[in-house]
Each structure stands twice: as C-alpha cells, then as structure tokens.
C-alpha cells in the first residue's frame, strides 16, 4: 500500500457523510436494551470510582448504594476496565486488610 493509498483510505473512513455500516447499526440497536433515561457520565463515575471500589472491597453492596454508577460500568467498556484495574490494585494492597469488615 502506497502512502497515497493509505491517506485515501483514512480519508474515506473518516469522511463525515459516510453511512453507518450495518454492523454498527446492530451494535447500536443492541445497546438500546440497556439504555436508561437517566445515566451518569464517565466523569461522574471517575469522581466516585475510588469510593465505589473501596466499598466493594469492604464487602458492602456497592451496586445497591450507587446503582447509576453500577449501570454505567456495565455499559461503558473503558470505565469498566478502569474499575477492574483499581479493584486488582486494592485486592493486592494493604487496603483490603485495613478496610475489610470484621
């Protein structure tokens, strides 16, 4: 592939009037089933993520305490990855010993 071909392909991929491919429409339709009227944003999740993860480590019912956050983590791949990474860190740190309920 020449540089010109590559640039042409990138341009064609990113042109603003491109039709949404069928596969993307299917993904979008599937996502509607887990779409709620009220959802929190990635920023809201980020603000509370440390508190939420500690709550989970302590064995509290974090999902019940923060249902919007729980829902967001279920539908947003990147926030879910960050949450799981934080849980792994806490599980392997002294925090899990200090904050676990007796």
């Amino acid at each position, binding site marked *: *592939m020449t540089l010109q071909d*590559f640039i042409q*392909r*990138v341009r064609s*991929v*990113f042109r*603003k*009037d*491109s*039709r*949404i*491919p*069928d*596969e*993307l*429409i*299917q*993904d*979008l*339709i*599937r*996502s*509607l*089933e887990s*779409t709620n*009227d009220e*959802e929190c*944003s*990635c*920023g809201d999740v*980020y603000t*509370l*993520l*440390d*508190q939420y*993860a*500690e709550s989970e480590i302590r064995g509290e019912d974090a999902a019940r305490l923060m249902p919007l956050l729980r829902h967001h983590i279920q539908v*947003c791949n*990147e926030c879910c*990855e*960050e949450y*799981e*990474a*934080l849980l*792994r*860190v*806490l*599980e*392997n*740190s002294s*925090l899990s010993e200090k*904050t676990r309920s007796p």
Partner: protein
Amino acid sequence: MTTRTNEEWLKDLKSTGPARDAALEDLRATIQKSLPYALSRWLSPEDPLFMPLVDEVTQETLLRVLDQLGSFEGRSMFTTWVHKIAIRIALTELRRKRWQDSSLDELVDNEDSPAPPRLMADPQAGPEKNAERADMIVHIRRILEEELTPKQRQAITLLSLQDMPMEEAARRLKTNRNALYKLLHDARLRLKRRLSLEDISPQDVLAAFETK
C-alpha cells in the same frame, strides 16, 4: 515507607522541605508497586514497554496529584484516589498506543476482504420475507438520518471503528470523554423513544439485519 492518614498525606504534600520530599518518594513507590497489578491484563512486567510506561505514568501521576490536591474530598483513602489517577493515565496511554498500532495493521490487512457471511441474503426465507426485511433496514436507516445529528453519527462510527478509544474519538470530535458519553446517551435515548413510538422492537430490527 511511612504509613500516613489522609490528613498526614495532605499536610506533608502541601509542606516544603524534607517532609514533602519523603511523602513524594513514598507516593512514587506506592504507584510503582501498584501498576503491575493495574496493568496485568494488558502488559507483562517482562515486556520491554513496561518499565518506560511505569516511569512515565508515575511522573505524570505525581504532577497531577499535586495539581489536584485541593479536589481530594477524603471519600476514600488518599492512596486509592492516587491509584485511580494513575490507572486513568496508564490506560489512556496504553489504549492510544494499542489503537495507533492496530489501526494501521487493520487498514493494510483488510483490503479486499469479502463480506462476512451473516450479511448475505438468507436463502431459506421466501422473497416476500426478504422484501420485508429489506424494507425494515431502509426504514431504520431513515430513522437514523432523522433522529441522529451528524456529530452523533460521526461519534458512533469513530468509536466502533477498530475500537478507537473514547479519548481519541473525543479529541477528533473536539470534545472530551464526558461530553462524548452524553452525546451517545442522547443518541441512544432518541432512537429508543422513536422505535417505541413506532412499536418496533430491537429484536425485529436485529432479525432483519442478521438475515439480510
């Protein structure tokens, strides 16, 4: 390493002199100890990229923590708050790098690739059924045109394209990750309400696409 309460961390980091230096050194060690666990799904400590990434993330995290000390509200342990910041920085960098590497490979690899089998016409269905499904697809495409703004359509396409990270898509759309999520949520809500108004279930739509 000294064990500190949240208040002690804040006091030492806001001070000057040896107490601050010691706190920064302890924080650096804490971050570096945690990153192998945080990154274990993506990068092995044996990977040549691992140590440079850890050094870069540690440095950036320390700067960001000092800059944002005033926003720490004490709802978690201070170190948990720091880990959260380090993880956001590390995963943003990893996603950006992975996407840059894979998108070029995919553009080269996918040239002239045949259409996937599920997009072929269903030979089992009669012509009438196939016509109904084709009508449904045309109708759904019209709904997308009517309900979604050009920016929403562009965001959906970008994010699904070779798994472009949210941060990268937000940068291209001249927005941020937070606003991008809201943009997509609004798009999903509009579509959901429109389909509901027209009494079309998601299953009907998916069935039409899957047997196209």
